[in-house]
């Protein structure tokens, strides 16, 4: 073990033993995820108001029939802002995860499959990136490039990529020596198209899929954090983080408004983690017989 391995998998911890959470939370988690995705898809249909429409005669209202979550300091309807904010936050998190996967999968494969110098170089850079607290590096990159949600989530994707690189590398190294890979090489299968894509990738990608659920949760929290610091989404766009940030500014007047986005984040991330554990448990080879 080296100092650097200690920083490994900062988003998951050293080993993810199988967690059994009982049936109820698992079922609830899939329901939560389904609802969130439904809101993302149908935001335009279900939002009662334009999320950016101001009504200065109705600012900082408490819950009412017309505005179940109340209104913010500019009189915007919070239900609508939460609905559109869900779309913005989930897509932003999705963007970050996609970037992490796009960087992490090829580099992890390369490090694990090619080995030697490529492995050394890639893993050194991974160690270096991991020596930064993820949020701090993301803040640094975003602050330098200029605050903007796309920039911020790209930075988050970059700081999450090492987790996937490590995972892919470890998986690839163990599959690389498998007999079926050797068999393929024996009749001349080499390279990306004949060996890596058909044989290695399908056999190493599963844990990455589990990881995606967990990274998605991390990215949602990162979006909220960066938007809270005004580095993420810019006004007037609503996201979970920006709604929370706004609500906090006026929280001595309408303290309840900070509950709404916070609960949305917590429940979604909870659901993603439970689903990650659940998928992991289903995939565990020790559990299913040959």
């Amino acid at each position, binding site marked *: 073990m080296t100092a650097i391995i200690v920083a490994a998998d900062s988003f998951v911890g050293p080993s993810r033993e199988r967690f059994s959470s009982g049936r109820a939370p698992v079922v609830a988690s899939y329901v939560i995820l389904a609802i969130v995705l439904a809101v993302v898809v149908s935001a335009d249909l279900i939002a009662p108001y334009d999320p950016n429409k101001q009504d200065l005669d109705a600012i900082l209202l408490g819950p009412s029939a017309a505005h179940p979550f109340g209104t913010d300091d500019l009189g915007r309807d919070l239900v609508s802002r939460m609905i559109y904010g869900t779309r913005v936050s989930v897509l932003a998190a999705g963007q970050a995860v996609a970037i992490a996967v796009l960087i992490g999968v090829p580099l992890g494969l390369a490090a694990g499959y090619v080995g030697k110098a490529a492995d050394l170089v890639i893993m050194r850079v991974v160690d270096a990136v991991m020596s930064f607290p993820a949020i701090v590096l993301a803040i640094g990159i975003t602050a330098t490039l200029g605050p903007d949600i796309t920039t911020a989530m790209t930075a988050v994707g970059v700081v999450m990529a090492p987790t996937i690189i490590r995972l892919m590398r470890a998986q690839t190294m163990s599959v690389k020596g498998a*007999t*079926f890979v*050797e*068999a393929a090489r*024996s*009749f001349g299968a080499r390279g990306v198209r004949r060996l890596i894509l*058909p*044989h290695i990738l*399908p056999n190493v990608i599963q844990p990455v899929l589990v990881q995606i659920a967990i990274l998605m949760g991390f990215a949602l929290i990162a979006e909220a954090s960066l938007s809270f610091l005004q580095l993420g989404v810019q006004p007037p766009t609503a996201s979970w983080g920006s709604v929370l940030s706004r609500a906090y500014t006026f929280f001595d007047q309408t303290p309840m408004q900070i509950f709404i986005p916070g609960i949305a984040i917590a429940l979604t991330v909870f659901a993603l983690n439970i689903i990650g554990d659940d998928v992991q448990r289903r995939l565990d080879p020790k559990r299913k017989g040959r």
Partner: protein
Amino acid sequence: MSALQKGPDEAAGGERRAPLLELRQVSVRYPVGGRRRLTAVDAVDLRVHEGETLGIIGESGSGKSTIARAVLGLAPVSSGKLLWQGEDVSGFDRAQRREFVQAVQMVFQDPHSALDPRRTIAQSVREPLDVMRRGVRGSRQEVAMQALADVGLTAEIAGRYPHQLSGGQKQRANIARALVTRPRLLICDESVAALDVALQAEILNLLQDLKVNYQLTIMFISHDLSVVAHLADRMNVVYLGQVVEDATTTSMVDQPRHPYSEALLSAQPHVNLHEETNRIVLTGDIPSPLDPPPGCRFHTRCQHAIDRCATTTPELTEALPDHWAACLRTEELYGLTGRAKELI
């Protein structure tokens, strides 16, 4: 090199054709941590002639699989030459290389792990054709199905995944995959070891049939002497990465000329029905190839070992006509026979 130490072909006066495949002084060394190297195969000479079945026998870890992997280019050959029909493989151009790859196929040791768990049997079996771009795409499927039929697997099984097959079916699928390219040399690495006895016989019979139908030359690797003796025309006994005895199966079984072969044979009394042999029990484990004993590698476990065995390395010499053994004391122990006798 004295006349006594030449290979069987030259000794036989060169009347035979060049072997289909020949290994000359091939060594495989694996780097293992630090500057240490593990010599898995040590200066091995080996010939396979067209149409014959060559058995390779030795204990676990003796380097049998590594020899096969070296032939297929899967193990790093650190010295020595590989000759295909008398030509050095390392000098092959692309076309010749392709020809060679297609002509030499292997059935791997573990039938389960040799198949990609995420591909159907049909996909796995036709893959060599895809990789080598043999024939038109449409006909590859037919070729694959034909090969599957030849090994006794139905079209229904072809659509399944490896985990849905029995051990015997998986091994048949592996054999089918090795056959689709119409190879000339089939290397079978412990092809039946993972199966139970009844299945072993089935697969062995299948291999015999395929050998005729596909006009195969077979290199059959096993640690099970009775299996090899049953199948092979000629046998090579390996110990710690070296060939210690090389003879026709009958000669080897009737009159082994190396104490190691003798010990292996004595452990299989039903192989040799002619002689009343006492079982020779090998004591101790096979030494580590990281740190092989000096002199004769077998001396640490040989009941006939003398001081000289620990210092002098024996070479393969002709102990009987076309029967070669690497033992310093072969004459003392088994009598003066073969060419050596003729020369006197």
